[in-house]
């Protein structure tokens, strides 16, 4: 079944196929957008949504699993590895032949059966699993976290090292798991939009837009053109704040303090621009079903434009220093390389995928809202190292600023918000938004009463954490902070 971003279809239209036929969906360079389970009586329906970037379409199909397990697709399609583990953890069905079968978030199964046979009625202990181990002379293990040295979210990292060289890094998360996805079931209700805004707090606009796009498609409501533009303005400001902050943090991680200090401040200037729009530095309260809850009057737009120019002038200056400093280049280049082949196999998205040369950007390949008519050039690099991930961010900063200059000047007339009713029954909708970390995917399915029978959230980090693990191979353990920052993935977006 061919779908389009943000367009609802009857849920019955999603074809039911034998499990083996799901493989066909992933042929021809298509990549997974979402793969999840939905209960169907005693059985589980596995729903696979893949993106065809060349065609600008999505394909979806479902396959029923009746027993306790199903043959794993991961050996042939490594990009599904985490999705299958998630399905097993939530619904207790085991992917047979999965090469890396471990819990994802360490919560009790959503229905009685536990895929790992852990004792029922007890909460699993986070991080208790079989870690991959290298053995041999002078091989040692370094364990870090969940509580880290900086102001950062919790996660556990285990390095298999030989001297300073890292053979393998295993990343075990779940500490931020707060049960949001499960709480979204049965909605929408008065908390739903707040869940969306806090799926990953630094991506409030991205996730809230994906949520509202979904809801509007299900309710057959439409956000007016002005609202679409306001959302895109906020989305690009979110991208600017985070990309600028990341370039500063990368500078800090190689000990280059001028850019670290300047970009730290400038990140705040972009957050404050978002606060000019809606009062919140993270854009809380701005994106609402039917449009935007705050309008941008001409004087405010003018002020935003002036402040944007001032901030951008200083960003240019601060980032220019990075490229002009040989010691920065020496640390950035050829550190944490991820090849295009590995990135493709893992199904990576966002700036990290683009740094490895993959042309993956929802704004270009599956545009929605204002991006259908206003195009932002796709920014790629080829070397897949820290340098490339930094440079792609710099390209995107320039392009987001150009977009904002145009939008702030030519904001479409009309209302900022329209009424959006309740979702219609028995629909299915996939909604994609290019957040600053990459593709945000929300999939919703309504029941006969129009409530969420399924609500799947895929944060870009879910695709990319394995990329960080691969980037660390054959690197020095001291390069971990730099590599980690060059991805800057979300723990809470992964843990949900």
């Amino acid at each position, binding site marked *: 079944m061919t779908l389009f971003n943000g367009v609802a279809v009857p849920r019955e239209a999603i074809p039911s196929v034998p499990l083996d036929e799901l493989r066909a969906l992933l042929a021809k360079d298509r990549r997974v957008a979402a793969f999840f389970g939905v209960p169907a009586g005693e059985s589980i329906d596995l729903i696979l949504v893949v993106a065809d970037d060349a065609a600008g379409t999505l394909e979806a199909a479902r396959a029923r699993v009746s027993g306790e397990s199903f043959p794993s697709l991961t050996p042939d399609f490594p990009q599904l590895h985490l999705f299958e583990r998630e399905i097993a953890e939530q619904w207790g069905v085991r992917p047979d032949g999965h090469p890396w079968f471990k819990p994802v*978030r*360490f*919560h009790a199964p959503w229905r009685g059966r536990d895929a790992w046979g852990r004792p029922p009625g007890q*909460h699993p202990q*986070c991080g208790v699993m079989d870690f991959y181990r290298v053995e041999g002379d002078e091989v040692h293990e370094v364990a870090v976290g*969940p*509580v880290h*040295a*900086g*102001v*950062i*979210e*919790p996660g556990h990292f285990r390095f298999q090292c030989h001297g300073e060289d890292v053979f393998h890094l295993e990343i075990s998360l*779940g*500490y*931020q*798991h*707060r*049960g*949001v996805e499960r*709480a979204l079931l049965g909605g929408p209700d*008065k*908390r739903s939009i*707040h*869940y969306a*805004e*806090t*799926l*990953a*707090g*630094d991506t*409030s606009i991205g996730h809230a837009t994906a949520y509202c796009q979904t809801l509007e498609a299900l309710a057959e409501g439409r956000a007016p053109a002005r609202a679409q533009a306001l959302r895109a303005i906020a989305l690009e400001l979110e991208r600017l704040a985070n990309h600028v902050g990341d370039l500063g943090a990368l500078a800090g991680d190689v000990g280059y303090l*001028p850019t670290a*200090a*300047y970009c*730290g*401040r400038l*990140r*705040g200037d972009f957050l*404050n621009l978002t*606060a*000019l*729009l*809606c*009062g*919140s*530095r*993270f854009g*809380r*309260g701005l994106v609402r079903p039917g449009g935007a*809850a*705050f309008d941008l009057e001409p004087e405010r737009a003018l002020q935003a434009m002036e402040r944007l120019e001032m901030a951008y002038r*200083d960003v240019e*200056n*601060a980032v*220019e*220093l990075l490229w*002009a400093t040989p010691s920065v280049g020496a640390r950035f280049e050829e550190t944490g390389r991820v090849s295009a082949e590995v990135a493709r196999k893992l199904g990576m998205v966002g700036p990290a995928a683009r740094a490895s040369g993959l042309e993956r950007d929802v704004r270009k390949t599956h545009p929605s809202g204002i991006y259908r008519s206003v195009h932002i050039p796709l920014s790629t690099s080829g070397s897949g190292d820290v340098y490339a991930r930094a440079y792609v961010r710099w390209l995107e900063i320039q392009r987001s600023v150009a977009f904002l200059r145009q939008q702030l000047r030519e904001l479409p007339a009309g209302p900022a918000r329209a009424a959006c009713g309740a979702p219609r029954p028995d629909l299915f909708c996939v909604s994609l938004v290019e957040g600053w970390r990459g593709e945000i995917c929300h999939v919703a399915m309504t029941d006969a009463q129009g409530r969420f029978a399924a609500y799947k959230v895929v944060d870009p980090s879910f695709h990319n954490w394995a990329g960080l693990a691969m980037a660390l191979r054959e690197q020095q353990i001291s390069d971990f902070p730099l590599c980690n920052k060059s991805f800057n993935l979300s*723990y*809470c977006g992964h843990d949900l």
Partner: protein
Amino acid sequence: MLKVLLARVQQGQRTAPFPAEPPTLPDRFRGLPVLDPSRCAEGCRACAEACPTGAISANGELRLDLGRCLFCNDCVVACPEGAISFSTEYRLAARARTDLLVGGPGDYPRAAALDDNLRRLFGRSLKLRVVSAGGCNGCEADVNVLGTPVFDLGRFGIQFVASPRHADGLLITGPVTENMRLALKKTYDAVPPPKIVIAVGACAISGGPYIDHAEVHNGADAAVPVDLYVPGCPPHPFTILDGLLRLLGRL
């Protein structure tokens, strides 16, 4: 080298003149909610019903729990009489959980300082270990920003340190997920006494948007004793800084 010096000139001096001067906040900033119960229609519970976290009680007496409040504006939109509005008052920190319950206008918390002994110990040098215990990373982001030149936390002698062994206390964000409960407890135990605990954000105070989820413990004080509550979702960096300075008796 010349480039670096020229950049330094262009980037300029950016530290806010706080606390000598009040911070500049955006006009749409949602700070302390102001309640005007005199406008309430008999039996109306529109605000309480709209509130996503049950922060408002409107059973005869209108009260709002800042510890649960997401500052989301849903109550303001729901109220037909304009009985609730948000001011730009950013000073919101409190020492006791009950101080966060606000009623009529002018009723809001101002955190008192630590006792003399703790002030003598920590007043000019406070080292904090941050523990992120669930949540959305919003609070962490606006705690982190205190280290930038704009806020320059170091000038107040306050610093985030890498080990609980080096710390005088914890700054906790997040609702305390079941998966972080043990790590939080261990980190708390590793801080040498006397120690203080600061709960930042609606999650760490009450569970925030995740109140009563099976996977969370509704805030830091379920696991450890809390000395300072900083409301917000997330709190503005100046709200956090104001709270820290009040706790140390420096405001």
